[in-house]
């Protein structure tokens, strides 16, 4: 069974409450029921990173009614604790266990080595084992499309980016955004401010204000709260949503957004586990059907030809005609990173630690 209709999915997931889902008792003796454990690093909120994962496992439940039982453990912030929680979930008969963040990789690797009969799947992991898969979004594809729109909509040719931490996931997203913007507006630049925290929204707002005051008129960024969009709207600037659709909180000035869609990550893994054909995979998917990222509906204020252009690029990316990191590509120090005709390999993308031309601001040197 496959979920094809977004509206049906939303209906199904909203009829189930988080509270009801979290409190399922485990039944180790039940036959043909797959017990699934999911560990979240932070509490599951209304929008944001954890929410997108919750939408994923809720879709999985809806896809296999009565066949999967999900146990959710939220707010497991540190590696010391996640290892214990993964082990406990495994020992209590969960046959498929999901980690939802890069921080879960190291502890999950340790537990997976000692629980060979349990399947593990970890979001943003860069390592796989025989019984531990990984899934990650090529969200630079989505951020590229967002960049195309940003590049067309900016009047000052200055974009702003609020960064939390310079992890590869953020870096490839920034690079995609900038390449998209430059593809339609060679004069565009992007200023970056790093705030070094995921959970101090007041700092996000300060960073947005600093960027706007110095000319930025389209804001994007990596801390996954709607605060940047709200702060930008307050100052009359456009914004790009990250992780989730924030239009509920940013009703007027959200251009679009590049969001995660983990439904197929959870559903495919559970289907294989139910069928007994589960194999550890390293899934790295972008836009399109069954992909791990998606675009937020475009703002009605965007001119039709810009929307048409963006939609065409979405199609070209999905069909493989357009490669975001295609050569010739130089980093911002002028060093050639991809020769003409080539493009970055998946491995190069996933360990990316350089910025493309046009991005200004501090960046850690390795």
């Amino acid at each position, binding site marked *: 069974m496959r979920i094809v209709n977004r509206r049906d999915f939303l209906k199904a997931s909203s009829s189930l409450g988080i509270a009801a889902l979290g409190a399922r008792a485990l039944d180790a003796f039940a036959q043909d029921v797959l017990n699934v454990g999911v560990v979240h690093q*932070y*509490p*599951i*909120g*209304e*929008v*944001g990173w*954890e*929410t997108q994962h919750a939408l994923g496992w809720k879709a999985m439940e809806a896809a296999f009614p009565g066949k999967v039982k999900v146990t959710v453990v939220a707010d497991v912030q540190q590696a010391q604790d996640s290892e214990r929680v993964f082990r406990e979930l495994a020992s209590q008969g969960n046959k498929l266990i999901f980690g939802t963040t890069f921080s879960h990789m190291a502890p999950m690797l340790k537990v997976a080595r000692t629980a060979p009969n349990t399947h593990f799947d970890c979001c943003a992991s860069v390592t796989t084992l025989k019984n531990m898969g990984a899934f990650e979004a090529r969200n630079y594809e989505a951020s590229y499309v967002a960049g195309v729109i940003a590049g067309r909509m900016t009047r000052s040719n200055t974009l*702003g980016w609020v960064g939390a931490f310079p992890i590869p996931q953020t870096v490839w997203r920034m690079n995609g955004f900038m390449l998209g913007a430059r593809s339609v507006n060679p004069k565009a630049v992007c*200023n*970056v*401010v*790093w*705030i*070094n*925290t995921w*959970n*101090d*929204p*007041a*700092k*996000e*707002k*300060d*960073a947005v*204000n*600093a*960027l*706007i*005051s*110095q000319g*930025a008129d389209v804001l994007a960024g990596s801390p*996954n*709260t*709607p*605060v940047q969009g*709200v702060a930008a*709207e*307050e100052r009359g600037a456009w914004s790009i949503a990250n992780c989730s659709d*924030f239009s509920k*909180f*940013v*009703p007027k000035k959200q251009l679009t957004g590049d969001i995660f869609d983990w439904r197929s990550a959870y559903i495919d893994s559970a289907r294989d586990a139910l069928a007994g054909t589960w194999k550890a995979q390293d899934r790295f998917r972008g836009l399109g059907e069954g992909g791990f990222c998606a675009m937020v509906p475009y703002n009605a204020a965007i001119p039709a030809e810009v929307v048409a252009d963006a939609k065409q690029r979405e199609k070209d990316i999905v069909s493989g005609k357009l490669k975001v990191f295609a050569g010739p590509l130089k980093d911002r120090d002028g060093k050639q990173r991809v020769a003409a005709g080539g493009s970055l390999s998946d491995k190069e993308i996933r360990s990316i630690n350089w910025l493309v031309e046009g991005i*200004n*601001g*501090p*960046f*850690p040197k390795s």
Partner: protein
Amino acid sequence: MDMVVSVIAATLGAGTPLIFAALGELVAEKSGVLNLGVEGMMLVGAIVAFITMRSTGDLWLGVAVAGVAGALMALLFAFATLTLQANQVAAGLALAIFGAGVSAFIGKGFVGVTLENRADAGLSLPIDIPLLSPLLHSLHPLVYVSWLLFAGVSWFLFRSRAGLVLRAVGESPASAHAVGYPVIRIRYLATLFGGAMAGIGGAYLSLVYAPLWLEGMVAGRGWIALALVVFATWRPARVMLGAYLFGGITIVQYFAQSAGVAFATQFMSMLPYLATIVVLVVISRDVAMIRLNAPVSLGKPFHPGV
């Protein structure tokens, strides 16, 4: 021009939660009560204000509820320290930790929820003065309230009779008691006031500054407010100065990054904390001045006897 206005406006905005919390704590400390639980009270204020505003849409009701919640948290502290004579430092730390737990508990259904943009503009001057008019207009009404609070606290402490009594209680509870002042009751009231202001400082963060709820979103501002009181040598005007200085450092480093200053950002993020330490050292090294300004009985329990 626009940039000057926005740097100043952002600095004033960043200092405001610190002003509420620090002025409240200053009054409590002037009565001799050292409440280290500001961070916890701010967190609880932030979440209850957020829930109130989200369900009623009324900013001022949210602020009021946050004040009450902060005062209730302070009441817990006051009961432990003033009635049950518990160690103030220990009880304050307990309050900080407890407040973090309580706020996370109450707020678990609200993580990431964001309030819609509200047009709470500041004053509109009848005439157009460059810099000043756009600046005053861009400030949130709560910023003006923080200025009123400053004026009120200054007047109360140094111009009113009640303030004199409160200071006397902080200086020498035994003699204040001997003269017939209800030392414990006065300390209760001062502590509750401190809690209420901390709650409102938290409300400013979750309603105006952010505006959303995240666990631990006060992010150390309660502790910085405590440092500000020492920095200010227990004088309201210096609290204002310190709060804006601290806010300014945070803001300026973002402007520097945005302008392309490529220095390791972690070190830039350390600046506000390092600056706090430096200022504490500079102020505290003058022992005579601290002695002169610090309430003599600060942190010491007082038992009126029978």
